[in-house]
């Protein structure tokens, strides 16, 4: 069993991000944004983009590897892969698949990427404009339950009910993302600070989610380059070694019409122990956390399920002061994340996790050895990533 691990075998060596835009504001179409991000990631790594021979993405990314490699004049590819499932559940999973392909020898230089222009292709926050709701959608859409916020408010309400969670716990997560975005010029919400009063006075999207509990809708693209630990040592940037990368979903979580037996959950309960065992670290050793915020309620549940706090401790622990990069006990979403930097489907959380290892985040946490990402609470499957400054712990 001990040799069946990804730990320490691969590293993230290059980051590429387009400018991030409010939906509809990108000057370029999604495919061109994706090309940009991949080219920038290769340049950042000091690799010729034509040497990329593996592609991994998620959430039915429209920008397929055959078109990308053709457009880029890539000589050949040895790996092309799509992580099943929707939402941001596959962000870390795409990196995991790319890393596995590198470790298995399917390819040498893999890119995990996401191109997403909601202005060009439609907003995630809107219900489907169809006359007939097919399949399982028939049990929800006719009742006006159509958007991701509405899907996940229901789970969040149940968790809040079971554990006596107060609205202020959700608020702390919005405040943390906006706090960090004010130092990050890439952030769409840069220069737009959020106060407790702003949050409290903001309109409801769907109770218990205020406007600021919900992710943005954006245009942009992001990409990260993964290669072997051996090759990483000779490249120009400090490697962020992959200590663990894993995906999972719990028992019958995809039951339709909101019938998952364990309902007030973000779906990380079986994954989190496997992740920590793979990395050889526990939650107490995580120096900085990027936790995917589709909606604040999912962050809250996923942090509990990853062992950062017990359900009965949430109302005390979920406080902005605990999440600040400068002095918090668990620096959280230090680029502004999906709420305040950009909703690049969580790829932007992975780039930030790598920056924290490199030491060049605008909200740099001191002495980062272990940098963690959780991807896609409440969807199926979900995935996680733990990065280390050294290949072994």
């Amino acid at each position, binding site marked *: 069993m001990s040799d069946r691990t990804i730990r320490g075998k691969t590293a993230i060596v290059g980051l590429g991000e387009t400018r991030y835009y409010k939906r509809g504001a990108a000057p370029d179409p999604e495919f061109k944004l994706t090309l940009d991000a991949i080219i920038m990631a290769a340049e950042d790594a000091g690799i010729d983009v034509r040497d990329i021979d593996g592609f991994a993405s998620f959430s039915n990314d429209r920008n397929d590897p055959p078109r990308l490699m053709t457009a880029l004049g890539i000589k050949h590819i040895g790996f092309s892969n799509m992580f099943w499932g929707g939402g941001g559940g596959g962000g870390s999973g795409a990196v995991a698949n790319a890393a596995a392909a590198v470790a298995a020898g399917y390819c040498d230089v893999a890119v995990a990427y996401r191109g997403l222009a909601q202005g060009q292709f439609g907003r995630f926050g809107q219900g489907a*404009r169809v006359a007939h709701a097919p*399949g399982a959608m028939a*049990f929800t859409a006719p009742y006006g339950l159509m958007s991701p916020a509405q899907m996940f408010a229901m789970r969040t309400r149940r968790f809040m009910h079971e554990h006596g969670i107060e609205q202020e716990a959700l608020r702390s997560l919005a405040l943390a993302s906006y706090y960090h975005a004010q130092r990050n010029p890439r952030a769409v919400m840069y220069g737009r600070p959020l106060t407790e009063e702003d949050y409290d006075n903001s309109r409801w*999207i769907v109770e*218990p989610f205020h406007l600021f509990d919900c992710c943005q809708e954006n245009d942009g693209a992001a990409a990260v380059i993964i290669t072997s630990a051996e090759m990483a040592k000779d490249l120009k940037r400090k490697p962020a070694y992959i200590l663990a990368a894993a995906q999972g979903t719990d028992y019958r979580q995809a039951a339709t019409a909101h019938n998952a037996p364990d309902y007030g959950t973000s779906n990380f309960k079986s994954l989190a122990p496997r992740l920590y065992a793979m990395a050889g670290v526990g939650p107490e050793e995580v120096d900085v956390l990027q936790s995917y915020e589709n909606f604040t309620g999912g962050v809250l549940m996923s942090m509990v399920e990853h062992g950062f706090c017990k359900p009965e401790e949430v109302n005390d622990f979920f406080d902005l002061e605990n999440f600040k990069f400068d002095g918090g006990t668990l620096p959280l979403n230090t680029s502004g994340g999906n709420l305040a930097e950009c909703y690049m489907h969580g790829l932007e959380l992975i780039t930030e996790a790598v920056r924290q290892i490199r030491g060049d985040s605008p909200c740099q946490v001191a002495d980062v050895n272990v940098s963690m990402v959780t991807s896609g609470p409440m969807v199926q499957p979900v995935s996680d990533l733990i990065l280390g400054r050294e290949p072994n712990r």
Partner: protein
Amino acid sequence: MSDPYPASSQGTASAVPVPTATVERKYLLPEGLPQPAPYPEGLAAEFWEAARRHELVVQHCKSCGIHQWGPEFICYKCHSYDLDYVRVSGRGRVFSWERPWYPVHPALQKGVPYIVVLVELPDADNVRMVGNMVGDPMQDVVIGGEVVAVFEDHDDGEPPYTLVQWRVV
């Protein structure tokens, strides 16, 4: 405030006023939302046909006896393919709920807020169903509170269909 779905009216297809709306609507939510289309494979057809008869049915395993929802071709517990639909009482408990304010569909522009409830059915292994709560959209909803299914006929649907909604007992 008058109850748009008094118990005595269950089974009728009369137009019902919505209490807080300034204009009377035929249904709890405005018209124009997607209507149910059964699974192409016919999985849920019996459920929607039963709703037209104002009967609430749930998929049931003839082999091991468990209820499962949403419907599937196989029993998740014993892997039997021998599944049918059985009628249940329509009594349920609120398991969770939410109040949408942002209109995610053009039809909802003049229909917010409204309440979506997730109801568990104790006499069907606590399977859950999604519906709207009848009555004041600003009412306090109590998790664990008892509700009963009411049937909202959309005879003008193409084809006609019936939604299962929920009313506080």
